């Protein structure tokens, strides 16, 4: 595999070299050096000096002002370098003819100017990410970046520029270009979903590359996500897309093309988030009302993304309305939300504040009291996010964002201490887990073609548990012991990304970054009676330094053929060991006929973090650890081939993609990890393996009209192979689903009433069943040595649970009120109450054993009331 990778790198290098060389004819004459003394020259003097030194002749147009003075630094420079500095290349060009250099004016067609600026929502001034900016005449186009910035270089003769964004009215600008200019574009929302300019897209072939194994969800799409348990969850919406599945029933974990949930890079305003679920993963931590745009990439990864091997989910929070104060609040079955956003200083500084909290704990307490239950159970989760955007000047912007969210569970049990006379005992357990992320980002427009973003990031994930036991003496409880446990990750990162658009045919992105990780697998403290016992060895933290640099060029090679060629260099220093990897990335798009796009993508990815888990769920107790001397990074190679075609001016769209992925060095606990010492290096407890995934994904969308929706089908196979597990035989990965079919329909009857329905189907998940009873000896017994019968398995994941399917229905009632909008949402989750399997167990007596499939939820009717102002 390594050899194959080097061959691929060499191939890419040759391809890039060929492309570069093909575009530039470097003449020997231009490579000759000219010695310049430090002073101010007129152009004429400089030409004469060069003629004298190099024995060449200059011939120039009379439109060139040769009396123009230029200042050059002393030293030696190539003639080409000198000419590039002294001649206005936007109006003149030079050619080499044997020993003569001709300087001639550019033709009208050749004169080009750069337009740059930001694309905003006209009402709120929120940045629009991924807006299409297209010049139909010159057949070129671009897309606004993650901050809404765009830059496009056009021939001076270009008279039209079209701007489009899904859900917004298309805007056409009449241009009369005299030079480089800045145009900030404000787009108006429209009632019906707009079609992105098909003609323009066809012309701007480069833009089509953004669609390879990628889905983008804007505000309108996010608002359509149906609620589960009263919460419209972003990740539940993403799980409907082809190639993406839920980990388990009701789970927010994403399984992308057979990869485990930890293989997804979840970015919240550029900050990686490690644990993304509340209530053991049932809800994702992202508040839908605070999100501006989401992009999920499953394959064909641009070089700017790295660090995980399965997917990238890039979530951008709203900046806040730049003109007026707005907000909303909503009440659901288990939580309340509140959003407030607006200008701090009009058109200069904005903020967005978002808050969500469940009230389960507030309600459970009184209920337990009424029921006269002496024990106490409290649980809640909450999130708060705050973002500030400050426009320093037209070329500089600052963003600051903070997110804090977590879950807290407390259980206190009161009991008699082995007999009622002797006294009472109390045990108290507390669990808490959550993320804190913060970032400061600085946008700078260095020139019309160069945009930079620099981010300083601090993030923290923690899991904390406390277990306390006390005995009642007289009237108060005296603690007998207390155990505290904590684990987590802390990251500090600095990164810079450059976005350079030198010509209409190239969009070059490059950047570099460094992240310091501190991992605490487990830190424990015991207080026993009056003594404190610290587990010193186990307090050890792992520290590592991860770094990367990348470059990618999104280029339009011909009118029909475009490519994004990139290279990423990753590395990590863990202890004294360095792990380095070079990752080539390639995406190509070839247009056949009017609008059939054939896409091919290859990505090589590395992941330096492993999450080891003992359960089938995504739990906060799972630990994240870095690669070490012994444990290698996860590496994956993925090949994607896709074809897409829009119909009726993008009203309908059909796409089909096939993908093949090999993942190496995935980790499972070894067969005998129990025998490793607790304080042993964790690398002795795990064993590496290999995963293979192949799949075909079909997506059919209807984007406009009263009825909208999509249908997604995935046929896939995912297998694992571990030398040390399952007797060295391959077995189905826990994420293998042969068929997956989702259909979503939305009908807007009027502005006041809309309904939606989603049907989800997935083949049964593999499961391990212990189907052999054995008599085993009890190693603890001092007298009778045999235990009860013990169940053993022969093969991992050899059986399938029942298929998963459910129907979700939703109705949305919207009413305009005097000072805002009132929305009632009613949803039914799992409308026909299918008992979808979560896990299996075997039970029964001799001769009458059954497999019991447990389901988490039945049908759930929920509601949510929202008021927007």
């Amino acid at each position, binding site marked *: 595999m390594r050899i194959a990778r080097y061959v691929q790198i060499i191939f890419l290098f040759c391809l890039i070299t060929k492309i570069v060389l093909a575009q530039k004819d470097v003449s020997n004459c231009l490579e000759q050096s000219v010695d310049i003394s430090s002073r101010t020259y007129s152009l004429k003097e400089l030409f004469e000096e060069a003629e004298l030194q190099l024995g060449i002749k200059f011939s120039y147009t009379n439109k060139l002002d040769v009396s123009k003075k230029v200042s050059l630094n002393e030293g030696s420079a190539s003639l080409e370098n000198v000419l590039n500095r002294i001649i206005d290349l936007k109006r003149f060009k030079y050619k080499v003819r044997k020993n003569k250099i001709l300087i001639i004016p550019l033709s009208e067609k050749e004169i080009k100017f750069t337009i740059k600026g930001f694309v905003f929502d006209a009402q709120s001034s929120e940045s629009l990410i991924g807006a299409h900016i297209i010049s139909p005449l010159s057949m070129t186009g671009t897309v606004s970046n993650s901050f809404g910035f765009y830059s496009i270089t056009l021939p001076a003769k270009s008279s039209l520029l079209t701007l489009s964004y899904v859900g917004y009215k298309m805007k056409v600008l009449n241009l009369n270009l005299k030079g480089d200019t800045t145009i900030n574009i404000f787009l108006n929302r429209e009632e019906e979903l707009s079609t992105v300019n098909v003609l323009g897209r066809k012309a701007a072939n480069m833009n089509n590359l953004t669609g390879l194994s990628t889905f983008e969800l804007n505000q309108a799409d996010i608002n359509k996500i149906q609620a589960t348990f009263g919460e419209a969850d972003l990740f539940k919406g993403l799980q409907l897309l082809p190639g993406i599945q839920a980990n388990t029933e009701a789970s927010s974990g994403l399984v992308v093309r057979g990869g485990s949930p930890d293989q997804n890079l979840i970015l919240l305003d550029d900050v990686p988030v490690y644990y993304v679920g509340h209530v053991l993963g049932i809800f994702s931590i992202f508040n839908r009302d605070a999100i501006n745009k989401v992009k999920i990439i499953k394959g064909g990864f641009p070089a700017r993304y790295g660090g995980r091997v399965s997917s990238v989910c890039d979530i951008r929070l709203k900046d806040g309305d730049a003109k007026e104060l707005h907000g909303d609040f909503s009440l659901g079955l288990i939580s309340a939300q509140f959003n407030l956003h607006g200008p701090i200083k009009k058109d200069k500084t904005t903020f967005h504040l978002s808050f969500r909290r469940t009230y389960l704990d507030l309600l459970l307490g009184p209920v337990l009291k009424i029921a006269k239950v002496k024990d106490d159970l409290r649980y809640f989760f909450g999130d708060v996010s705050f973002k500030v955007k400050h426009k320093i000047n037209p070329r500089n912007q600052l963003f600051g964002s903070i997110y804090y969210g977590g879950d807290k569970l407390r259980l206190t049990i009161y009991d008699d201490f082995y007999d009622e006379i002797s006294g009472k005992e109390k045990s108290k357990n507390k669990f808490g887990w959550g993320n804190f992320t913060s970032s400061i980002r600085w946008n700078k427009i260095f020139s019309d073609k160069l945009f930079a973003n620099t981010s300083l990031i601090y993030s923290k994930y923690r899991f904390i548990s406390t277990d306390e036991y006390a005995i009642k003496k007289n009237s108060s409880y005296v603690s007998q012991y207390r155990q505290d*446990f904590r684990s987590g990750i802390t990251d500090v990162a600095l990164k810079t990304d450059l976005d350079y658009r030198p010509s209409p045919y190239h969009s070059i992105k490059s950047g570099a970054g460094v992240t310091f990780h501190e991992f605490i697998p487990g830190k424990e403290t015991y207080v026993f009676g009056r003594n404190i016992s610290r587990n010193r060895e186990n307090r050890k933290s792992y520290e590592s330094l991860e770094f990367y640099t990348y470059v990618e060029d999104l280029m339009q090679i011909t009118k029909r053929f475009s490519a994004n060629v990139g290279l990423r260099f990753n590395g990590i220093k863990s202890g004294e060991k360095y792990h380095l990897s070079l990752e080539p990335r390639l995406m190509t798009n070839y247009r056949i006929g009017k609008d059939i796009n054939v896409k091919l993508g290859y990505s090589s990815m590395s992941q330096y973090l492993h999450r080891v888990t003992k*359960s089938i769920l995504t739990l906060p107790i799972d630990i994240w650890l870095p690669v070490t001397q012994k444990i290698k990074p996860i590496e994956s190679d993925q090949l994607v081939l896709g074809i897409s075609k829009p119909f009726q001016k993008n009203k309908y769209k059909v796409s089909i993609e096939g993908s093949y992925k090999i993942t190496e060095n995935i980790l499972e606990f070894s067969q005998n990890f129990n025998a490793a010492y607790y304080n042993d290096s964790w690398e002795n407890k795990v064993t590496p393996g290999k995963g293979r995934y192949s799949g075909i994904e079909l997506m059919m969308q209807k984007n406009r009209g009263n009825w909208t929706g999509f249908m997604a089908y995935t046929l896939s196979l995912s297998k694992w192979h571990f030398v040390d597990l399952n007797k060295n035989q391959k077995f189905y990965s826990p994420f293998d689903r042969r068929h997956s079919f989702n259909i979503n329909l939305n009908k807007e009857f009027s502005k006041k009433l809309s309904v939606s329905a989603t049907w989800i189907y997935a083949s049964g998940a593999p499961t391990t069943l212990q189907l052999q009873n054995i008599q085993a000896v009890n190693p603890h017994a001092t007298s009778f040595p045999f235990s009860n019968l013990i169940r053993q398995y022969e093969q991992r994941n050899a059986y399938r649970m029942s298929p998963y399917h459910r129907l979700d229905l939703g109705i949305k009632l919207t009413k305009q009120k005097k000072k805002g909008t009132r929305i009632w949402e009613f949803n039914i989750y799992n409308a026909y109450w299918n008992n979808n399997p979560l896990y299996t167990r075997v039970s029964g007596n001799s001769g009458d054993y059954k497999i019991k499939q447990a389901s988490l939820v039945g049908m759930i009717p929920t509601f949510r009331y929202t008021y927007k102002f």
Partner: protein
Amino acid sequence: MKLIYYISYLSILFVAFIACETEHNIPKEHSEPKLVINSLVGVDSTVNVNVTYSNPLNGQPYSGFIKDAEVKLVSGTSEYRLQFNDNNLFTTNEVKMEGGRDYSLIVLHKNEQYAFADETVPHAVKVLEADTFRNDGDPERILKVKIRFKDNAQMTDYYILNASLRFTYDEGAANEYHYEYDIQPFSQDPVFEHHLIESQALIEKNLLAGSRVFSDYRFNGKEKELNFYVLREGIWTNSAKVDLIVFFNTISKNYFHYERSYVMYNNAKKLPFYKKVNLYSNFRTQFGIFAAYSANRLVIPLKAEDKI
């Protein structure tokens, strides 16, 4: 009104999160019974081997011990054939296990099923002191025990700590009888890696909670004082002589693996979300364990103040 609201709310949540179970038949795929061999052998003891078949849940249940298996114990050039006895065990009086020696156990049944495992018998260690004690400030409900012993420097040793209480009722010289039951030892000693602390955590962060084995990697070759405690609530009688029996055995690495997998199996089966665990087996193609130990049975008579 409040009550109605709360009840309605909880009813919705109950409907939402009620866990349902549906029943399905065991898959029809044929699953062959396998040999299950159990043999925990002690130094200076006779070898006892229990041989049964596993019962595939979808097949004919097999009950009883296998009597007609061919069971052999091999050590160096010596080979001993074990005979089935009245206790349903294969055994031999020809040999007793010796510390430091390697043994192989071979089981063959009807020329179809074959199992083979190797084992090295551990040496005993000398226990220098064993006693109960209580310090000022100790919680009322505990009785502390200390064992001082000298670890063997020449080899990696593994230990297991088991305990029981023995009650002796003396109703005249001719009428003395004993009653003994196993009890759970608890310990904060780092050698147990916090598996033996009292913990009532809802989600077990450590599937090895309750494991009583440890290795000498922290004190290899040195004299070690091991502290643990038992709960006094079990020691409730004044009408009997009570002895705390401590089984402080040196065990082999196979025994160590087996005990930990046994603990993990029992912890994981309470947690349906956890991945399934199999017992450790040194019979590569079959189930079961052939593991050795060297026993140290320490009898500590309890004093009046030790009882609660």
